[in-house]
């Protein structure tokens, strides 16, 4: 088991290198000159060729591509992500750290909503298949998967905040501010997970072990919870693992709709300001999150499934 974990962790390293390289290349493909952008953002009145050249040298942009990449990676490994162009007195790491908690709160609240809503709803949809509850839920799923998050956000804002004046429209400060954005972010995931759990359970119900459990006269409740649900959730583990980074990255749009001061808002502002170091670090961070969570949940699944665990050790 330990060897397996070490192997998987080592296997993730090439992937991380690829991600960092792609991230570096793509950001540098943006057709404006970082030096010129940096000068413009710091509001230098007259930008001449000489000043640009000077800034390029100062920022190390005149060095060869690979050298710049290596410098950047090495700095990143020392957790030094450079300095923001717009706010030269702030480091990129500091900026991200400032915005990260808000995004984590939003993503965490969404995850809690996703789990506590989709699990029981999916379960009852499968148990009472084709009942009115199942039909209504399926209609709801059909609708919500077709609606983009920013639109749902605006609709909710209009209905809940403006029409009924129940919750604030934007900002963050209290738990009241959290409800609408968290619900908006989680809505698509809730639909996906209800469908996933419902279909997994219906698939499992056809299995021989369920027939045999019925043959042995086990109580219905125990068959549903102990056997069918447990087997169905197993396939959901990996999906949850992939959803966590998706939730963190996917808050961008919703954060902007609700003016939530998290990573997403920071990222959009940086894109408008051409603040390269921030964008680059944000993309890298999200990429790393995907790799880390994928790895983590793969390992969790291996430990949780006796068949896989056996194969590994």
């Amino acid at each position, binding site marked *: 088991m330990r060897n397996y974990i070490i192997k998987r962790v080592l296997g993730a390293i090439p992937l991380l290198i690829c991600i960092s390289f792609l991230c570096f290349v793509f950001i540098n493909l943006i057709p404006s000159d970082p030096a010129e952008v940096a000068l413009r953002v710091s509001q230098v009145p007259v930008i001449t060729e000489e000043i640009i050249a000077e800034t390029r040298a100062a920022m190390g942009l005149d060095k060869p591509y690979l050298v710049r990449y290596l410098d950047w990676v090495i700095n990143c490994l020392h957790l030094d992500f450079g300095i923001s162009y717009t706010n030269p007195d702030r480091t990129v790491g500091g900026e991200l750290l400032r915005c990260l908690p808000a995004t984590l709160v939003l993503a965490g609240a969404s995850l809690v909503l996703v789990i506590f809503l989709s699990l029981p709803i999916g379960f009852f949809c499968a148990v009472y298949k084709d009942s009115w509850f199942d039909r209504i839920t399926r209609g709801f799923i059909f609708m919500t998967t077709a609606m983009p998050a920013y639109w749902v956000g605006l609709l909710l804002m209009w209905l809940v905040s403006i029409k009924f004046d129940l919750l604030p429209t934007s900002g963050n400060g209290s738990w009241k501010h959290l409800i609408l954005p968290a619900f908006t972010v989680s809505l698509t995931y809730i639909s996906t997970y209800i469908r996933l759990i419902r279909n997994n359970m219906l698939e499992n119900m056809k299995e021989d072990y369920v027939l045999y459990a019925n043959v042995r006269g*086990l109580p219905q409740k125990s068959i549903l919870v102990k056997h069918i649900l447990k087997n169905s959730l197993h396939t959901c583990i990996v999906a949850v693992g992939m959803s966590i980074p998706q939730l963190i990255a996917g808050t961008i749009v919703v954060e902007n709709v609700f003016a939530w001061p998290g990573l997403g808002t920071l990222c959009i502002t940086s894109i408008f300001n051409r603040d390269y170091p921030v964008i680059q670090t944000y993309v890298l961070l999200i990429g790393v999150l995907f790799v880390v969570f994928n790895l983590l949940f793969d390992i969790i699944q291996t430990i949780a499934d006796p068949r896989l665990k056996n194969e590994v050790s």
Partner: protein
Amino acid sequence: MNTVLEVKDLSVALKVGNNTKQILSNIDFTVDKGQCLGILGQSGSGKSMTAKSMLGLLDRNFTVTGSAVYKEKELIGESKESLRDIRGKEIAMVLQNPMTCFDPLCRIGSQILETFQAHTDWDASKQQAKALELLERMRIHDPLEVMEKHPHQLSGGMLQRIMIGIAMIMEPSLLIADEPTTAIDAINQYSIMEEFKNIKNEYNTAMIFITHDLGAIAKIADEVLVLNQGRIADKGSLHGILHHAADPYTRLLIEKRAAVMERYHNALYKEKLRYA
């Protein structure tokens, strides 16, 4: 009264959309104590359906009519919960694919114990003792270790024996074996058949043995019921069926089997000549 199960006019229809399809029609048979009824037929002839329809194991799309009286108790139309109490305790069943019949995530021990918990009020230590007794009776080596194993770590033959053990430990009045030898290899088939013969001799349990294998039926059945496309094709003693079958379908089954056996014996004979 020695009759354990009396089935009369049992019919099953499947509803698909607006159409209904008749799957079983007018099945009649009785099973007495200590007697084994063999149900013979090819795949899709309705053998398993007969057993499942009596025990309420079919889903809502199926309509079951007729009567199946188990010890003066009508099973057809009985509530789901009361059938659940009967299943596994009074009427036990052994299924076809031992490898897929156990929950892959649960240990064998816990799957044995949950059966006890469903039907008895034994305390933990008695449950444990009974589980060990069951495994020992089925000649499983290292029963304590096997209890801690997951299904994928055991062989098909072992799982089949555990399934028989679970069925018999509750001392049911009726044992239904649904193609118990189809999915396992020849050596295990032999030992599983021996197991069933023992059960018949020792416990005097009434038994329904469902199979498409004439050889297995010949080993164990007293009475034979031949099913073809959901109807009874032939019915009678084993000897009668083998030698004076009335129905052309039954005769075909027996002829084919005889032809296969002849080819097998010829092949074996030639091999012997070659090495002689």
